[in-house]
Structures are given as C-alpha cells and as structure tokens.
C-alpha cells in the first residue's frame, strides 16, 4: 500500500492526522498534510482508507 498526498489540494482540515495519526501529520507552517509513513504496514490500512474517505478536499489516495 502506497499513500499519495497532494499538499496543493489540501485545505488543512486535519481529518487525516486525526484519523490515522501514525500515517499523517500536518505541517506547522500552513497546516497542510505531511505523510509520515508513505508505505504503512497493512495493520494501518483501515485507518488510512478512512482518512482518504474523510478528507474534504480529495487530496489523498492509496495505490495498492
């Protein structure tokens, strides 16, 4: 599983950092998404997928 994040689309709502804190954080400068773990273990898949669904700006995706 590979995490893709487009910081240009991100609106800094923080749903990703809230839902999957082991995978996502937010930059201190502008609050946009920072991927902590671009290839997280399978155990984090459910949380990562939930973050993708909840992201309001469509900035996140997962490639298998």
């Amino acid at each position, binding site marked *: 599983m590979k995490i893709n994040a487009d910081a240009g689309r991100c609106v*800094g*709502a923080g749903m990703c*950092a*809230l*839902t999957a804190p082991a995978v996502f954080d937010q930059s201190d400068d502008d*609050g946009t998404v920072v991927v902590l773990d671009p290839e997280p273990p399978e155990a984090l898949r459910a949380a990562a997928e939930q973050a993708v669904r*909840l992201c*309001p700006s469509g900035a996140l995706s997962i490639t298998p």
Partner: protein
Amino acid sequence: MTEAIPRRETRETLPITRERPFDPPDELGRWREEATVRRMTYADGHEGWVVTGYAAARAILADPRFSNRPELLHSPFPNRPIRREDLERMPPGFFIRMDPPEHTRYRKLLTGQFTVRRMKLLEPRIAEIVADHLDAMERHGPPVDLVPTFALPIPSLVICELLGVPYGDRERFQRDSATLLNLETPLDDAQAALDDLFAYLHELVLRKSTEQGDDLLSGLISAGELTDREIAGMGLLLLIAGHETTANMLGLGTFALLCDPAQLTVMRDDPGSVENAVEELMRYLSVVHLGPIRAALEDVEIDGRLIRAGESVLLSLPLVNRDPERFADPTVLDLARSAQGHLGFGHGVHQCLGQQLARAEMRIAFPALLRRFPGLRLAVPPEEVPMRAAMAIYGVHRLPVAW
C-alpha cells in the same frame, strides 16, 4: 374532463417549523422522499434547490462548479434578503464567502494555527476555562440557566484566547454576534453589529502591531502578507464562526443528553467513547441547520436533476446527516455508533477550519459537566425549553438545570 394537474414541486419555501426539538421538520423529511435534490422557492422568488441526500450534498460541497460568493447567492429566508449595499460593506478577509484561489490564499495563512497538534496544546487551557465555569455554577447553586453560565462563555473565552482578545471586551462580542445571527434582527441592526465588531477588531490589530503577543492575530501581523483590515476581517470570521456554533452544540447537546439518560451515562462514565459520542452529537443535532448555500457556476447534473448555472442550492445538513442510505437508524441518538463522515462541519474546501478546536472543547466540556453534577437534570419540563428555530444556528435560548 380535465386531467389531474401533477403537483408542482415549486413555489414552496423552506419548512423551518419543527414538531420535536431534536428532529428536523417532518415536511423536509417528506421532501427527501420525493427527491434528494428538490426544487424550492427562495425569499426573492428565485426558483432554486434544496438538497437532502448525503451523497448529493457531499458531491456539491466538493465540486468547484459551485460557488460561495454572496453576490451569486439567493437567500432562502424572507427576513434575510441579500442586499447589494451590504455586500459592498463585507469585511475584507472574510474568506468563508470566497472561492479559490482567493479563498485558498487566506485560509492557508490560518491552517497552520489550527492543526490537530496545535489544538491539543490548547486542551489544558480549555480544561481550566471549563473548570472555572463549573466552580461558578457550584457556588451559585441550583437552578441555573446553562446557556449564559456554561454554553456561551466557554467557546467565547477559548476563541478570545486564541485571537488574543482581552477578557474585558468579551461581553461586547457576545452581544454583537448574537444580534448578528438572530434572523429576527432588523437588517440595519445586524449590519451595525457587524460594523461594531469589525471596528473593535481593527483597533485591536493596530494595537497589536506595536505590542506583539503570541496569539493568532499577532501571528498574522508578523506574517506580513495582509493589511490590518484583512486581519481584522479574518478575526471577525473566526469569532462569528466559532462562538455561536460551539455554544449551541454545548447547550443543545446537554439538552439532548438530559432527555436520554442512557446516552448521558455513556458520555459521563465511558472516557473511551467520548470521541465517538461527540461525532454522533454533531450528526444528530446538525446545528448549522439552514445551510450552507452554494450557487452553480455552470449547468450540473446531480442525482438526475439538472441544476442550471446561476441557481442557488441549499444543503440541509440535518437531513443530509439523517440520510438512511448513509446512516442506519438515522433518527436514533446512539453515542456508540461510528458517525464519522457526517457533514456537520461541512465538506470540501470550506470544511470547518475550527473543527479540531470545536471537538476539543466538546470532548472536555460535556464529560466535565456531567461528572461535576452527576444528578444534573432539567429544571423545567422539556417542552418549556425555548428553541432557536429561526436562528441561523439551531439550539436552545435557555436551559434551566438543577442538580
């Protein structure tokens, strides 16, 4: 013989009368059964739409072909027409009413101050503010009205703290923002309240330009990208957007819990379920109950309906958050369910900037209140609690409680 004329779904304005305090108007529920994207007449006679389906609302809020610019929007409420001269007086930096890329420019300057991590740092201060108000309630003794003693002052103090607004000025804020959001306030008074808030914040920004603090306004000043009027406008937006919304979640949420002792027990006694519980209250109560509104910039088809360029669309969050296609048993308050994905904070580029702050406030305030007063109860029969039916943000006007 004349044929039966099919019932036209137009020329009907938004139903706002509720039969029960926590449920949206039954008529709106019937509208959703007719169509999740349905015709509705706006106050100026404009034939626009109301959206009551979850999937359609999410799609529209995420779609750049729908604009939030006020000059394109029609107002659904007879007593709140959108007037040209008011628009020209709209404060600069009021980015909730802009589209990208202007919107992006302003929002990005603030998102760094609202991250999940930054909001965690505020939690001890929020807990102190909550404890101070519980102490005051205890000293006063029952009964008290929970709105002025708890629900209103806590979010107001938290936002003042964030912005760096001196404590002594907060009453002026509460009065002005209440005037502003009351749909029954005459337009000129609402505009005067807005002007007063803006003038105050502008003064404050000028003061802070010479004596910087570590607050949000000072941060925007030192970023050096905005004029002081823009910074004041952004401060005004945060105050208006963050105060009355959170206050009504606290007031209405407590009312809902007091009416449902089993759910109240979950919130009070099970710290592990507080996160879920707050999401479910957001979904169930949907206090932003008469919006958001958008205008189509081009013709767009949603759920089989063709929304034409220029037409206004009202997203009815209470209905959307009770869409049976998305949430099982949607009319039931069930703090144990996973309500994630509700649209109580909106969706898309305008999704609530302050949501992590609002969550922190609710997660701290509800359990603290219920633990301090384990015998908390309504001091009047539930049907005597006055509801804010006509207000932009739904909630209770007063909530008399005893313990």
